[in-house]
């Protein structure tokens, strides 16, 4: 089976649960008392979707303001980005829009965008409605799900949905002696499957 290596980065405000989402996806665990990330954490995980393997190189960036300037290193060359907000914090959703603008301006042109409204288990404290977020995501052609790292809702689905939006590309062999250079994909964007 062939393998695609996907660089993916997570962006979003401090405390929205980026690291917890990654931890749930990679090791299917949850830690209530996770520490703030320093700079960024790196994890990798292989996912098989429709007989195709995807090896995600996940750069989980720090949400704290002092690391703000480092973000370009992590979204540079990324095939996909997940922007995370906390459904119980309106301000974290405003930050999503800011990240989208930054990616549109400075990010890789063909980046697959996904928006995740995390902490979906805390419905009673909700500040951001599903419809509002969904409408916004549709406008910018981004995948949208509400997730809960705590209860594992929609986490794997989020990554699976991203693989389906990736442009078709030259298959990269798992045997890594020779690697075909990836062809420019702008023209292939129209071939995207369902979102």
């Amino acid at each position: 089976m062939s393998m695609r290596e996907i660089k993916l980065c997570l962006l979003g405000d401090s405390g929205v649960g980026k690291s917890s989402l990654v931890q749930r996806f990679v090791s299917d665990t949850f830690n209530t008392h996770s520490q703030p990330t320093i700079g960024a954490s790196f994890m990798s995980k292989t996912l098989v979707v429709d007989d195709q393997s995807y090896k995600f190189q996940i750069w989980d960036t720090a949400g704290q303001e002092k690391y703000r300037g480092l973000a370009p290193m992590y979204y540079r060359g990324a095939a996909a980005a997940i922007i995370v907000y906390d459904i119980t914090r309106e301000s974290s959703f405003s930050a999503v829009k800011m990240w989208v603008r930054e990616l549109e301006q400075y990010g890789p042109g063909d980046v697959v965008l996904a928006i995740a409204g995390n902490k979906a288990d805390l419905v009673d404290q909700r500040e951001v409605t599903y419809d509002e977020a969904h409408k916004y995501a549709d406008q910018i052609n981004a995948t949208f799900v509400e997730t809960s790292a705590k209860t594992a809702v929609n986490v794997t689905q989020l990554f699976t949905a991203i693989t389906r939006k990736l442009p078709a590309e030259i298959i990269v062999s798992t045997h890594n002696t020779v690697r075909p250079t990836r062809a420019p994909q702008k023209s292939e964007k129209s071939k995207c499957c369902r979102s």
Partner: protein
Amino acid sequence: MASVAERQPPLQSTRSFENDENSPTILPWDRFSNWLHCVCVVTFDLELGQAMELVYPSHVKLSEKEKMNICYLSFPDSNSGCMGDTLFNYRIRQHTTTFNRKAATLSTRNAYERRGPVTLQGENAYYHGFVYFRQVRDKSSRRGYFQKSVVLITKLPYINLFTHLIDIIAPEYFDNGEPCLEAACHDIDQWSPPFPGATLHLPIMGVVLQVRIPSKHDKPAQSQVIKPILSPGSAPPIVIPSVNEVEVFKCFQPVLPHIQLLWELILTNEPIVVMAPSPTFCSDTVQALVFMMSPLKYTSDYRPYFTIHDSEFKEYTTKTQAPPPVILGVTNPFFAKTLQHWPHIIRIGEMGPVDKSSWKKKKSSNIKTLESKPGVYTRYKPFLNKDKTVLKRLQKGIQNKRPVEVQDAMLKRHFLELTQSFMIPLERYVASLMPLQRNISPWKQPPRLKPFLPEEFIKTLEHSGPQLTSGLTGDWIGLYRRFFKSSNFEAWLRSRQQEVNQKLSILHLDALCDADLMQWIKDKQEVEIVDLILRLRDKLATVCAPDLPTRQERINQLKIHMDHIISSLPDDLQSILKSN
């Protein structure tokens, strides 16, 4: 990289490292310190001159002397010409008295030293510094310039890897400041240990580097020449073809006809100065010199970049003693005078089109002024004749614009064959000094390697000398005699002796474990039995030493033997032996 997989260490040994991930004994910064000692930022302070702005992680201890050396060496010595960004490296003595804190790191190191090639062992007395220096016009500064260096300090001689690494980290630091170093160090603190033979993926600041850590068991010629591939959008790791190999051809091109001579000088630990116009050429050339006799280890001191501020300046430049057997790389014109009494001086001009006049050997007394032309200044007469075929092929390559990588591989191959031709007779002779397996008896001390007798060795050359593998003619015997006086030889012989004696000690342990000790003690006096027990105890103490790859089951077996023997003795003796 399919061949790599085959040469990986047995699964069991790699697994012990992977388990580190979950091991509670791994503290923050433990993994970091497998790779780096620290990262420093050195700045130019109007009042203090070069000053240490930052050491990261902040708990890392550097002595005052180390800090001073790092500060001075991290700026080009005479930097007027170094506008923009300059990468180079240096090597400094450790001047620390602080106690090396971690047992976890130590055990990793031991396993590493046992399996890694000798040329790549971590250093306990030196640090390597990898510098990224930036100098740009800055009107807001009173000096009119922004001048700052980011430096990686490490014990590992992975020249290539760390040069790449600093090239990734430093520019980001200049853009984003301290959080960027924090992020980089945090990334490095997630890296798996540099286990010999392992292929590793090392995440750093949004990219993943792929490296393979060389192992003792690698065939030297098989360094993989893989071109790094940077493809936009997708993210295969950036392949660093070799952690340590430097571009020897690029460095030696200005002095190409003298490579044979240089190889002899390096082999025999002659004092050498490299004078170059920039710290980059300077450190690259010194590293290339040190590399040229691998897989044999260059054992005396070398300083890819040495300045008048170095704490060893007086020691190394004194005229009251003969020059020390070291290699110094310098850029400051001042050294042309200070070191003019040195026997071998290599002057490198600007890299680029080569002025053929530098290909002539020059008498060292001619070098007085800074304007001296590039070339090799020495009175040394090589023992071996030049390998004209190789030189012609390389020169033809230059004319035909053969790719530098190919030239580089050709030159490396030449040095490797030369070193191997020189070493094979020595290896063969040492193998003949090995005692026979049948001389290993459980009842006697383990036999030891017989002494190395130079004259006996020279006698073997007639039938099995380097002429078997090398077409080079000349006074090989003279070269061997000179080599015997060098510290390279001493260190090589010592490591061979150690290896063989360890092996013998382990074979002796096997013999003891397999012997029927209970049968043997049947007709023995008590005193002989007690003597045997004491010898077994000694044996256990030696084979349990941390640097020995002894199998635990063998040790347990011997302990059981010992318990049996003790229990066969009268009660009073038993209690004495047990209480001891």
